């Protein structure tokens, strides 16, 4: 049974990785935070504790799968998201993910980067999301699998973290 489930999981994984639509989507937000970049980066790179600043998250667990680090995020609404931690780049203060399962999207590659802000003691955080709609084929697109659904899901799930990261860090002073 376990093997069978693993096979199904593999099939689902490879399906989500294979095909995607022709029009990539982008959500690209920047937030200025009154905190030193090193302090902001320390919180951003701590992917096992994303619930500290991403308000939609209920719990996080992380497991190693071969060379991959796979994180499971359970949202407060019960949805389970799986993503791969692709790179944690301390030199450039940038963390890259690939969200592999859990929402109406495909080939979803977000990253978060931290830079110096406009003034001393400030940081600029960039939240960059590149993704495709879930439905990989020509229209008609089934309900809930179009571009608008993917954009709404990401806006509802991840984007609330942008302002909350600022709040958490600025209040922590």
């Amino acid at each position, binding site marked *: 049974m376990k093997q069978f489930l693993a096979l199904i999981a593999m099939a689902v994984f490879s399906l989500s990785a294979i095909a995607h639509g022709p029009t990539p989507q982008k959500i690209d937000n920047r937030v200025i935070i009154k905190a030193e970049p090193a302090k902001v980066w320390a919180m951003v790179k701590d992917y096992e504790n994303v619930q500290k600043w991403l308000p939609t998250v209920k719990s996080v667990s992380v497991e190693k799968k071969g060379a991959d680090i796979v994180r499971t995020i359970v949202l407060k609404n019960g949805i389970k998201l799986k993503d791969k931690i692709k790179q944690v780049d301390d030199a450039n203060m940038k963390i890259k993910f690939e969200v592999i399962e859990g929402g109406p999207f495909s080939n979803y590659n977000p990253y978060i980067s931290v830079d110096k802000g406009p003034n001393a003691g400030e940081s600029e955080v960039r939240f960059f999301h590149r993704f495709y709609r879930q439905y990989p084929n*020509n229209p008609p697109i089934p309900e809930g699998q179009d571009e608008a659904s993917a954009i709404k899901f990401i806006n509802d799930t991840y984007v609330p973290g942008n302002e909350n990261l600022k709040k958490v860090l600025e209040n922590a002073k």
Partner: protein
Amino acid sequence: MYPIRRLGTLSFLACLLLACQKPSTSLAYISNQGDNSISVIDIKQQKVTNTIAVDHAPVGIAGSAELARLFVTNVDSQNVSVIDTNTNQVIHTIPVNGSPVGIAISPDHKRLYIADWYSNRVLAINPMTYHIINETVVEKAPAGIIVSPDSLRLYIAVRDSNEIAVLNTKDLSTLKRLSVGEHPFGIALTSDGNILFSANVYDNTVSIIDTHDWQQTKVSVGDHPYCVTASQDNKTLYVTNTLDESVSVIDIASKQIVATINVGETPEGINFDANHQRILVSNWGENNVSIIDAKTHKIISTITVGDRPRAFGQFIIAR
């Protein structure tokens, strides 16, 4: 026979005439998929000189200086915009009824080829009358396409089959299917047609293929390579790494990476401008184009264009 001064005047006039024949600049046509437009960049002036509205979600670009035409695939409106490059006006729209993405024009200017990636079709079209001359099935998900310098072969990156298809342009029959890396998307040739390149998105490699004996070498590049282009002298290959914000520079003879150039967010389309020895890269995530000096590998200019520039295909026309 002539006094020295007269000769000087004559050669001056001859140069002037010759200069009129030689391309004075190159124009880059950047497809902005997010705002349904084409930004026209004068590479000499390093600025956008025109913006042309097209149909929905433009991606692929093919142009011909001789025909004074630019062809743009609009994937979401399922058609191709035909632009007169003398007036920058859309003069016709060719319906495709599928998902046109890859597009290429034959060097003899007689055929326009369009890859329809969901319906697995390749169409051959007369670029002046817009008549569909022929069509064939190429499974699965034909993406980047390019025609050999002698116009006899059509090379297609067949994304979901992890293959390159080689078609005979006379009848669109398949000459060869060649296994490459995972998810080939962009494709390029050296100017002599001897070497073919594909960017293999999912295994982070570029295939370097001899078009005579089909010998292949894979070179590891950055994360999610999308597009490739070779320098005019056929010595250097440039690859956009979409998830690394960089361009890998490969020495074609030794098949070694000799430099990595940091560019903007999500670099996609890349072309070499022989006129000015420049490399142009469209940065999808940043809404701009990097102009890189081919000798120094330094970015000499960054030009703001429209939303989500793809510039997929041969997007530079010498004028």
